[in-house]
């Protein structure tokens, strides 16, 4: 609704806007100098961000490459060990004269390591490594194909027992004479098995790992997971452009309070290293400002006190100040003759929200631990925002400041996490995280809450 000014107000407006005063030229020079200084600071700040991001990417890539190489090596070893076993199974059990010849001539040491049957392995004194025998026999016991082969071998039907794709060296099943390079290849394979088993005994002792081909799927076998998390502590700060207190962006006496938030999340792992997630949860930003002997301005006409806070300034009327019954001392504030009071008070700012995070994470596994580097956006809806003022000697006063804030906004999330499996389907996750508002949540000034917290979660793998 368009309001009307009275004649006096209209005349005042017309008169005040009728003539322009120009700023002095030196103001531009001062402003430009300040802007250039600000540009330089921003540039240096950006450099740090770029360096930090580059470092993070390098670490991620390096770790990913390292993990990838290890996985490839392990898979190669696992594959080789199975194939080698089968090849040697053929060699050992073959009734064909040519294979007997091969054993005697070409593989004097290898043939002494009987890899075919468990009985033979256990009783063989020439086996170099006990874990080699155990692992390889385990492979054969667990591997269905290997079992089939063994059964059929017992029936003496070698050719039928060996599908072509399972035999690396087809010549082994044939009656042709083995060549020296092929024999060398077999020796190399077995040497590789022994070497790998010595270096990574833990990886290959897992039946599941060998059966599935990946040693890292021991405890994280499925792709979908749900998590229930608690955030028992966080350091909350409210960044603001309001100049108060020390004149900085933060009041020096405003501290973040410990809060407890609850998070529920659903994750889906796509591929080996990408995990997408969505969830919902609560967020409670809470800061406390405790001041002693603070000068508070007085509005004598209105009998009001004016307080400054990071969220907004606010007035407290004299009528709202009631003596604290628990305080024995009688407090009287003289609003008539004073322009300011010196007060001891505590101001608690609290912003409660519901959050919906959408995240993407780079995940990798080291031994039994799964690590993640996560980033994403959080839709944030403010459900409650208030300030509670406790002036010494008076009852506390609560101000609802939600109307001054933007109800719907977005935050950015950066999180790193580590998971430890505590059962077949459940893992425990610890994940430090940092969130900050992408835009000001205040309607009138710049106000960006940010928090550093530690999320503890139980994660269930379906």
């Amino acid at each position, binding site marked *: *609704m368009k*309001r009307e*000014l009275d*004649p*006096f*107000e*209209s*005349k*005042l*407006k017309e*008169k*005040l*806007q*009728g*003539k*322009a*005063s*120009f*700023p*002095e030229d030196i*103001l*531009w020079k*001062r*402003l*430009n100098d*300040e*802007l*250039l200084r*600000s*540009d330089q600071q921003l540039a240096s700040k950006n450099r740090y961000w770029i360096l930090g991001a580059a470092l993070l990417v390098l670490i991620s890539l390096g770790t990913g490459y390292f993990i990838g190489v290890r996985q490839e090596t392990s898979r190669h070893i696992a594959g080789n060990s199975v194939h080698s076993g089968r090849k040697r199974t053929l060699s050992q059990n073959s009734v064909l004269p040519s294979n007997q010849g091969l054993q005697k001539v070409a593989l004097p040491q290898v043939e002494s390591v009987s890899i075919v049957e468990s009985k033979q392995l256990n009783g063989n004194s020439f086996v170099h490594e006990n874990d080699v025998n155990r692992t390889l026999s385990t492979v054969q016991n667990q591997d269905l194909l290997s079992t089939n082969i063994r059964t059929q071998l017992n029936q003496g039907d070698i050719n039928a027992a060996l599908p072509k794709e399972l035999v690396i060296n087809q010549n082994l099943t044939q009656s042709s004479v083995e060549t020296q390079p092929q024999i060398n290849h077999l020796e190399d394979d077995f040497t590789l098995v022994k070497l790998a088993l010595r270096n990574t005994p833990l990886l290959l002792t897992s039946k599941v790992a060998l059966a599935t081909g990946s040693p890292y799927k021991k405890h994280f076998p499925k792709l979908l997971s749900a998590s229930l998390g608690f955030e028992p502590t966080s350091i909350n700060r409210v960044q603001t*452009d*309001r*100049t*108060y207190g020390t004149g900085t962006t933060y009041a020096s006496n405003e501290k973040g309070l410990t809060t407890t938030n609850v998070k529920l999340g659903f994750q889906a792992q796509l591929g080996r290293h990408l995990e997408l997630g969505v969830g919902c949860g609560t967020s409670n930003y809470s800061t406390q400002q405790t001041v002693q002997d603070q*000068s*508070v*301005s007085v*509005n*004598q*006409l*209105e009998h*009001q006190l*004016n307080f*400054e806070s990071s969220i*907004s*300034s*606010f*007035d407290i009327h004299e009528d709202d100040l009631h003596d604290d019954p628990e305080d024995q001392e009688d407090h009287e504030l003289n609003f008539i003759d004073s*322009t*300011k009071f010196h007060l001891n008070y505590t101001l608690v700012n609290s912003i409660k929200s519901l959050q919906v995070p959408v995240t993407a994470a780079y995940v990798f596994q080291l031994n039994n631990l799964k690590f993640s580097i996560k980033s994403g956006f959080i839709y944030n809806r403010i459900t409650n925002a208030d300030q509670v003022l406790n002036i010494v000697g008076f009852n506390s006063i609560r101000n609802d*400041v939600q*109307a*001054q804030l933007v109800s719907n906004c977005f935050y950015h999330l950066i999180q790193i996490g580590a998971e430890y499996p505590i059962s077949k389907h459940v893992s425990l996750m610890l994940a430090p995280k940092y969130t900050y508002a992408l*835009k000001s949540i205040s309607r*009138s*000034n*710049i106000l960006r809450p940010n928090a550093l917290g530690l999320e503890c979660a139980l994660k269930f793998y379906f």
Partner: protein
Amino acid sequence: MHKEVQIFEALIDRCIQRDEKARKELYDLFSAQMFNVCLRYSKNRSQAEDIFQDAFIKVFENLPKLSNKNQFPGWIKRVFVNTAIDNIRLNNKYESNEHLHVIEHFSDVEPSVLDDIAHEDLLTMVQELPPRAKIVFNLYVIEGYSHKEIAEELGINVGTSKSHLFDAKKILKTKLLTKEAKLFSIVS
């Protein structure tokens, strides 16, 4: 007209890219208007210059956040007004409110009393208003805010806003009548 809009948007884009010349152009376009805003909210020229510089820095730093460049004129004014209000609040903590003996029959004052008053004198009178009354007066009379909007902006209730405006007008009328009386005595 459309071309002018495009030129203006290009100017804003150059400012976002930290082009010094573009910044100067934008400054030249708005400096006079915004300096007058600062003068009305401050108590003297020195304070106005401080507000002016702070506000312009905010404007240039927050330009990338401006989603609709066509809204720039309204946006820049809002930044200046908010900066001025914050500055007044900060300085208001450490100074006492002015005690002024005001007349009680001010409703009889005719608008014609403003005819002979110089712009500078009127500006000085506005600058000398008590801080909160000055903010409410400027927001209501010059910027066109309603009392409800002022109450939300300042975190006060509507009644308080009306009361401040009432006080501001009362003080201004008193000063205007005093000034007129002095002029009359000099002339006669």
